[in-house]
C-alpha cells in the first residue's frame, strides 16, 4: 500500500476536523454578534477604585 493513501487520509481528516470546528462555532452563535466582544475585551477585570473620602455618599453607606 502506497504512502499516498496514508497522506491523503491524514490531510482529509485534518481538513474535516477544521470544517466540523467551523460548523460547531457557527452553531454556537459565535458569528451572531461579532461586535460586542471587541468592546468587552477592553474592560478591566476590576474597575472599582477606592471611594474618595469626601463624598456625600459615605454617610449613607454607613447607615
Amino acid at each position, binding site marked *: 500500500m502506497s504512502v*499516498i493513501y496514508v497522506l491523503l487520509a491524514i490531510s482529509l481528516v485534518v481538513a474535516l476536523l477544521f470544517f466540523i470546528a467551523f*460548523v460547531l462555532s457557527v452553531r454556537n452563535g459565535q*458569528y*451572531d*454578534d461579532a461586535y460586542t466582544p471587541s468592546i468587552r475585551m*477592553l474592560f478591566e477585570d476590576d*474597575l472599582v477604585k477606592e471611594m474618595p473620602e469626601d463624598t456625600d455618599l459615605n454617610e449613607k453607606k454607613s447607615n
Partner: protein
Amino acid sequence: MDTTKCYHCGDRCDAQHLKFDKKNFCCNGCKTVYEIFRLNDLSAYYDLQSAAGTAPKAVQGKYDYLDTPDIVERLIDFQDDQFQIITLLIPQIHCSSCVWVLENLNKLSAGITHSQVNFPKKEVRITYKHQALSLKELVYLLAKIGYEPTISLQNYEAARQKTDRQLIYKLGVAGFAFGNVMFLSFPEYFDLYAGQGGSEFWLEQYKGLFRWLMFFFSVPVVLYAARDYFRSAYKGLRAKLLNIDVPIALGITVLFLRSTFDIALDWGSGYFDSLTGLVFFLLLGKFFQQKTYAFLSFERDYKSYFPLAVTRISPKDQSEESVQLYKIKKGDHLLIRNEEIIPADSILHSGSATIDYSFVTGESIPIAKSAGEKLFAGGKQLGGAIELEVVKPVSNSYLTSLWQSNVFKQEKTTRFQNITDSIGKRFTIAVLSIATIAAAFWMVYDPGKVMNVFTAVLIIACPCAIALAAPFSLGNILRIFGKHGFYLKNTQTIEQLAQADTGIFDKTGTISSTHKSSISYDGLVLNEQEASLLKNTLRSSSHPLSRKLYAFLADQNIGTLDDFSEVPGFGIEGFQDDEHIKVGSANFVGRPDEALQNDTAIHINANDNYKGRFLFRNEYRPELAEVFETLTYDMNLDLTVLSGDNEGERNTLEKLLPGNTRMFFKQKPEDKMQFIRALQSRDKKVLMVGDGLNDAGALAQSNVGIAVSEDINVFSPACDGILEASGFGKLPEYIKVSRKALGVVKLCFILSLMYNIVGLYFAVTGQLQPVIAAILMPLSSISVVAFATAATSFVARKIK
C-alpha cells in the same frame, strides 16, 4: 447661557440643577442613577465614557401586567425551577459604558446571575433566579438605572426568530470543497505532457483516486450549497420568467454532469474546480449583499410599540386589573398613565388628557383634550392618569385598520424586478442559441465534438460575474450610505431609488422638524413684572407646553409665588404680591371665541385683562427649499406634499417650495396610499418620504419608502430605508449616487460579457480545457468585483 452639563446624561442643566457629590445633575432621576451606581461599586461606568447615561423615566405601574404568569411565559426564552432567561431589547444601549453596566447587573441585585449584551442588536440576555427577583422587579430595576426595556405586543405575538445561519453554512461547505478540489486539481494543472502521451507515471497511477475525491467534494456543493439557485430558477420558470438564476442553475448542472461523465469515462479531469469556485464566489456575493442593521427594524408595525397589556378598570368594583391588549372590548374602561400609549380608539372619560401623537403624525406638540372628546389609538398620554372608554377594539381602530390592507401582506422584492434579472432573459436566450448553433455546426464537421462544444458553451457562459456585479456594487453603496446615516433594507432599494421619478413627501415630522418648534407671541406687550410672573408661574407647571414655553422665554428673576394653582386640562394660575396671571387654554382665560381656532396656543391673562397668546408652530427643516429645488430642477422628479393637516400652512409652503410642487391637505392614511397607487397605475415610480405610523400604508405601497427619523433607535414605521433627520439635506445626493451606482452595474455587465466572449471563443472552437475554465472564471469574477467596489467607492466619495 448656563453650560453646565449633567454628569450622568450630558444634557444641559438649567438654573435649578442639583448638586451632589460635587457633580451636577439635570434632574433627580439622573442623580438617583448615579447614587445607585456609586453605592454598588459601579461608578467605573463614568470612567469608560463620560456622561453615558440616560435620564430614567417614571414608569410607575406601567409594567404591572408582568405579574401575570401567562404573559411572562410568552416573553421568556427559558425557565426551570430556579432560573429564567429573558432577552430584552433596550434601545438606550449606545456605548461601551452601557455594555459594561448591563453586564455587571449582578452587582445591583443578587437575583441576577448572568447578563450578556448583544451590542449591534441592542439586546441583553439576562439569567436570573425567579424566586429572588421577578421579571417585573427586573424590568423596574432596569428602568430605574435608565435602561428601560421595550416590551411590546410584537414580542408577545411573534415567536422568537431564529437567526438564519444557512448562508454561513453554505459558504463554509462551498469554501471547504473549493479549497480541497483546487488542491487535488494541481497535479493535473502541472501535468503538461499528458496531452502528448508523456504523462508522468506517478500521476497516471493515482489519477482516478484524485478525480473521484474531487467528485465527492463537489456533491454537497451542488446538492446543498447551490440549492437556492436551483430553487429560484425553478420558481422563475414556473412563473414563466427567465431570471438570472436560470442560466446559473443550468451552468452548475451541466458542469457537474459533464465533469462526472468525463471522469467516469476517463475523458479528462472534469471541471470540478470551476464548479466549486463558481458556487463559492456566488455565495460570497450573496453574503456581501446581505448587510443587515441588526438594531434597526424595517418591518415594524403598530404592534411593536403598543404595550402588551393595559390597566382595565372593572365596572363592578372599580378595581384595577391588567388585561392583555387583544382582550379589550368595546365599552371597557381603561386607565392610561403618564407616558402610556392609547391602544384603541376611545372617548375620554375623566382626567386631563394631553396627547402626543408624534408616533402617528409626526406632530410633536401635544394636544389637550377634555372629557367627552374622542381619542385615537396611537397617541401617548403626557401628564396625569386618564380614564377612557373604548369605542373600537384594537384591531379595528382608525390607525390599526390600515394594516388590514393587502400591501402589507406582500414582499416588495417580489413586486419589482431587479436589474440583474431583467437582463437574465436576454442572456439565457442568447447563450442557448449560441450553444445550439455551435452544436449544429460541429454536427456537420465533426459529430464527435458536438456534446463537448454544447456543454462547454453552457459552462463558460455561466453568468457568475454578471450575478456578482449588482451584489458587490450595490452592497458597497449600501454600506457607504449606512456610514452616513442612511440605512437601507436591501440593495434593491438602491435600484428603486435610482429609478424613482415621482417624490411624495409627508409634511409634519418629515419636511418639518419635530424637535424644533418656533414660538411666536401675538398680542399686547407684557411689562416686566408680568413677564417675570409668567416665567415663575410656568416654572411650577409640568405640562409639556409649559416646559416648552418656559425654555423659550428669556431668563427672569427667580422668585417665589405667593400662590399657585393648576386646573388640569385647562391652565395654571399664579399669584405674587398684587399681581396675578392666568395661563392656559382660551376658555380658561375667558376668551372662548379664540378657542375655535385650530392652532396650538397658550393664552395669557394678566390681572383679568386678556393679553395675547403664544403660538406654537413646527419649523421647516432649513435644507427643505434646497432639497426640493435640486430634486425638481436637477433631477426631474415630480414632487407632491401630502399632509394630514388642514390648509393652514399652504401659503408658507407655496413660498418656500418650487412652483410646480403639488400640495394636498387633509389626507387620511388611506388617501395617501390610494394616491400612490393611482400614480403607479400610470407607470410612475414613486418615492415616498414619511415618518409616522400614518404614512405606513403609503411607505409600503410606494416603490421605495423612506422614513425620516429624529432618533433611529426609537421608532420608525415599516419602510425600505431609514434616513436620519439630520441628513435630510443629503437626500438628493443619495439619489444621485444611486443613479450612478446603477451605471456602474451596467458597466460591470459589459465587462463580464467581454470575458464571456473570450470564453465562448474557446468553447465554440472546441478547445476549452478545464484549466482555461478554471482560470477564466475566477479571473472574470474577481476583476468584476474589484471594479464594482472601486467604482462605487469613487462615485460615492462626494457624500459628506
